[in-house]
């Protein structure tokens, strides 16, 4: 509901944060500026009113997303502009340090485009805005404009960092006085972590330089905050079902993919049968979605989690899903995702099975109403019944699918039915 701050960085040091025309309601497309409470050059504190607007639905005030000084006013009084248009820009104090804490909006709202630039002036930056920064990689390489460190980066180091979306403030420097050398940043590029998928966080908080030991890092705090918020928002329940994945295992071996795309495909089919789980719940507003925008959690190792979204996943085959998953995972790890690729999910799958764990209680990715956990596929002796009803013991590849679901939006019966459909789908591959 609040403005989504976007940020541009002017060449040099100042960070400019946008104040945009908010969307006061789903159907509202534009608003009119009624009065400016601040002028260019005025100091403004975060949440302080910047201007008053009027829309079809409501007249309201637009708060500043950050503290700083008003640098530009772009829209005059009585001008009517579309939602999202930049009304003003605020120059953020570089000494103000910490970004204001997350504003509670669970939706992963990516703000800056993580466009890698070749030049030394980067364009993307973590949002210091109300919404926690998106799942975008920690900034294309920039001279760390925080007051905290006065590190300077050479042109080639900046260029490589920008090309790969690497945050230079976390790169250890082995050069003189600890400066980052070309090989230091190259080492980070080359060592793409082969990390398993974990419970994801939709937020991409600012990493801090190493050496802040003793306390939780900012990233951890933000992940923690999000997880807590989710737990406090949804009425979490988790249901499990055992699935015989033997057929999936042979099918996937033939295709040369992992089990995940098969699961994804089955999830999509099951969601078609049980659309109530392909929905968002924000406060009391419940929306079922026609399209399945499937989020796939990707671990970024020390750097946290991210959930790239396969839009219109329902249109893809297993192979198509496999390809998309591979591509998104790779670009997630190289910090090359676009904002559109980390928002708008309607259902999430998390797949941390590499280490052999068999069950978990995943936390729902707000504002969705369910999340599916795929753990390890383990060979077990199971009872199989043949067509004549004879039982025998066979070795089958088994997994336990866990579904955490929001009891505000649905009941256990529905969750169970969904899991049953899923099981059917996977066992008849």
């Amino acid at each position, binding site marked *: 509901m609040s403005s989504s701050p976007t940020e541009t960085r002017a060449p040099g040091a100042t960070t400019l944060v946008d104040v945009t025309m908010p969307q006061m309601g789903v159907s509202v497309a534009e608003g009119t500026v009624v009065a400016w409470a601040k002028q260019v050059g005025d100091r403004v504190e975060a949440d302080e009113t910047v201007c008053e607007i009027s829309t079809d639905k409501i007249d309201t005030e637009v708060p500043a997303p950050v503290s700083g000084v008003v640098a530009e006013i772009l829209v005059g009084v009585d001008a009517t502009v579309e939602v999202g248009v930049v009304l003003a820009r605020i120059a953020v104090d570089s000494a103000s340090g910490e970004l204001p804490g997350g504003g509670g909006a669970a939706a992963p709202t990516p703000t800056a485009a993580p466009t890698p630039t070749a030049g*030394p002036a980067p364009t993307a930056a973590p949002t210091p805005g109300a919404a926690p920064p998106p799942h975008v990689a920690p900034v294309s390489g920039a001279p760390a404009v925080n007051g905290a460190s006065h590190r300077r980066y*050479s*042109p080639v180091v*900046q260029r490589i960092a920008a090309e790969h979306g690497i945050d230079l403030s976390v790169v250890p420097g082995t050069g*003189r006085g600890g400066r980052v050398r070309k090989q230091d940043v190259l080492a980070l590029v080359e060592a793409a972590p082969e990390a398993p998928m974990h419970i994801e966080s939709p937020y991409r908080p600012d990493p801090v330089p190493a050496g802040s030991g003793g306390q939780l890092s900012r990233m951890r705090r933000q992940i923690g905050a999000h997880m807590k918020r989710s737990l406090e928002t949804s009425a979490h329940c988790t249901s499990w079902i055992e699935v015989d994945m033997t057929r999936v295992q042979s099918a996937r071996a033939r295709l040369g993919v992992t089990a995940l795309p098969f699961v994804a495909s089955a999830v999509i089919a099951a969601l078609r049968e049980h659309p109530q789980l392909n929905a968002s719940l924000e406060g009391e507003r419940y929306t079922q979605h026609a399209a399945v925008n499937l989020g796939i959690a990707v671990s970024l190792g020390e750097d946290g989690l991210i959930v790239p979204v396969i839009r219109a996943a329902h249109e893809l085959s297993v192979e198509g899903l496999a390809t998309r998953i591979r591509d998104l995972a790779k670009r997630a790890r190289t910090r090359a995702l676009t904002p559109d690729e980390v928002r708008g999910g309607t259902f999430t799958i998390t797949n941390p099975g590499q280490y052999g764990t068999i069950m978990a209680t995943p936390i729902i990715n707000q504002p969705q109403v369910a999340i599916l956990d795929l753990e390890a596929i383990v060979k077990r002796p199971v009872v199989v019944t043949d067509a004549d009803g004879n039982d025998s013991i066979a070795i089958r590849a088994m997994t336990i699918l866990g579904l955490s679901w929001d009891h505000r939006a649905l009941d256990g019966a529905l969750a169970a039915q969904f899991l049953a459909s899923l099981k059917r789908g996977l066992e008849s591959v």
Partner: protein
Amino acid sequence: MPTMTYLQAISSALRDELRADERVFVMGEDIGVFGGAFKVTDGLFEEFGPGRVMDTPLAESAIIGTAVGAAVVGMRPVCEMQFSDFISCGFDQLVNVAGKMNYRQGLAVPITVRLPSGGGFSGGPFHSQNPEAWFMHSPGIKVVAPSTAEDAKGLLHTAIHDPNPVCFMEHKHLYRRIKGDVPSGIYETPMTARVARAGSDLVVIAYGAMVHVALEATEDVDGASIEVLDLRSLVPLDSDAILDSVARCSKVVIMDEANATCAAGAQVAALIAEHGFEDLDGPVVRVATPDVPIPFSPPLEQAVLPSVERVREACRELLAY
């Protein structure tokens, strides 16, 4: 393929050209009967006679000026300045008459001026200079500076074939100290740079005798992979090769045996700063002779000419930056 010294390679080029092209003749002081101060032209007089191997009066301005005259009526004079230092006496003819003629009058001046350059043997201020920068700065003159025997022959052929005035910087220190395989017959070495040793952590850019100093200094600097780029040609300057080395190595040390201010290396540094900025991981470092006349006494001369130790130290520091 025969092995020969840098000096023999130059002689070989002169001999092959005199044999192949009747327009070619060599001229200079003491080069004929005496065979030249350094014996580069030894034996040529006997083979080709005074009409092709001319002992001139002691008159550098006239050597260049008459060469221009001979060139514009169809000959290919190869002048020798006994020491590169003495080109100052012929500066006017080279820069104002030869260098500007094609631009002004559309009249090509195909002369080659051989300039025995460089120090390291107590030659003192007037027998040790590296004056190439004066002519890099003069429009219309090409400047080449080989560091190997093979390049010395090939570049001399190229220079003689070139329709423009070409300064051929032959380094006296390399005359007998450098040997190499040299192809027989006439071949042309292009006026481009050459990677003397490929590397990735740092590049040392040098030409002439400094290439050998660079190679020796960077054989093992804490195991780093150090590239050595031999410029070979100063005008035209191979900016593509220079920027390619910078792109790969990101750290640059540029060597000049010439006095530092406005030497060839200064031009290379400017080129890199403007066009290779985004590939740099450190400042562009120069190792050059300070702005002093080259002194005579060995400890003084050693102190000013770039040494293996100085280059190695510069590389070490830059690698660690």
